[in-house]
């Protein structure tokens, strides 16, 4: 590592932030693009499981709320793609890499949504897990990304409330409705525990080393468990992990998440990976004329 890069690294590790116009080491730029691109892809792909439920949502109010959430998430994708573009990767290239499987998106968006219970669990718990990661980006060393996250976190916070409201409506309903939520929780618990990634020490995580994110994977998972397991329990739901417990010193213990499943899913082998990519590809192709007309 040359002296200039070393100095840059020291600067960001001391909490320093940089702008798009500053000199950035090439390795930092590449790591940033990879991270931000995956985030944007996740926002874009993440609406597909929820989109499927817009017409099936139980009331007009729920249809409208879900539509607004989908609109927000696509908006987040637009904001985040713009940040990545500024770092030097054209949007067309990012879309091409998404469709070809070269670029990834988060594990939780590769799964089916079987019932309305899944929609509630996604909006409440998947968004809760995501907002923990996203809040840790408010301190990102790359300032344009950190600024964008302010707006995104603000919108995500009411998505969680929307999800919690869906869950509470079901949990205060009939036994069949409560069962719907329990079954959805059982389906989502594995992917939720995998969501924050394997527990590598943060000093070995390049995204932490460059202060792209400000916390390690396990810290994020502990924060999720600490914040949400009590909320799950208080509704009378069971977390499908017999080993889950909070030790006296406040650390959550849990069964080892299935890391092989995580790896397989994010590399495009999830139950819905290919369907959703095909859907996205179809719309990209179908709407090419709009992009052409605007650019003309």
């Amino acid at each position, binding site marked *: 590592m040359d002296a200039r890069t070393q100095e840059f690294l020291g600067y960001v590790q001391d909490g320093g932030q940089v702008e798009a116009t500053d000199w950035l080491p090439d390795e930092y730029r590449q790591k940033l693009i990879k991270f931000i691109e995956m985030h944007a892809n996740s926002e874009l792909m993440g609406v597909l499981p929820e989109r499927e439920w817009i017409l099936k949502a139980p009331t007009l109010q729920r249809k409208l709320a879900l539509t607004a959430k989908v609109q927000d998430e696509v908006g987040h994708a*637009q904001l985040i793609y713009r940040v990545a573009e500024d770092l030097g990767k054209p949007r067309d290239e990012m879309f091409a890499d998404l469709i070809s499987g070269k670029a990834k998106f988060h594990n939780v968006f590769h799964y089916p949504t079987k019932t309305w219970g899944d929609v509630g669990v996604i909006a409440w718990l998947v968004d809760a897990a995501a907002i923990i990661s996203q809040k840790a980006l408010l301190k990102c060393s790359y300032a344009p990304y950190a600024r964008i996250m302010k*707006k995104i976190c603000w919108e995500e916070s009411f998505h969680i409330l929307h999800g919690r409201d869906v869950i509470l409506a079901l949990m205060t309903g009939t036994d069949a409705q409560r069962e719907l939520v329990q079954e959805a929780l059982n389906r989502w618990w594995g992917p939720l525990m995998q969501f924050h990634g394997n527990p590598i020490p943060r000093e070995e995580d390049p995204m932490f080393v460059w202060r792209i994110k400000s916390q390690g994977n396990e810290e994020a998972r502990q924060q999720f468990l600490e914040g949400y397991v009590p909320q799950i329990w208080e509704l009378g739901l069971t977390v499908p992990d017999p080993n889950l417990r909070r030790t006296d010193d406040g650390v959550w213990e849990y069964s080892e998440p299935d890391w092989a499943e995580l790896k397989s899913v994010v590399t495009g082998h999830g139950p819905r990976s290919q369907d959703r990519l095909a859907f996205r590809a179809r719309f990209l192709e179908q709407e090419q004329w709009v992009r052409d007309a605007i650019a003309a």
Partner: protein
Amino acid sequence: MIFEVFRQEKKGQAFAHAGSVEAPDAAFADAWAREQYGRRGESEALWLVPRTSIHAITEWADEFDLKYRRVDGYSIKSRLAEARERASAKSSGA
């Protein structure tokens, strides 16, 4: 064309840089900025400024730098190179 977006959250507050939009012209930039930064009524006003119109100042002279009292306070290397270059350009151009 890239337009930088500055947002005013409440009346009377300073406009703060929020992000940017890429658009072929100001009319499209207007539409996209409204969508991305004002849809929820979260902004009182927006300023869209073509990126190329921004004149940025990031380097500051430190008038209270006391290094002039020391030998290492004078970095003549690059200036000397520039002066020599100018001198030789002048003599070869003449």
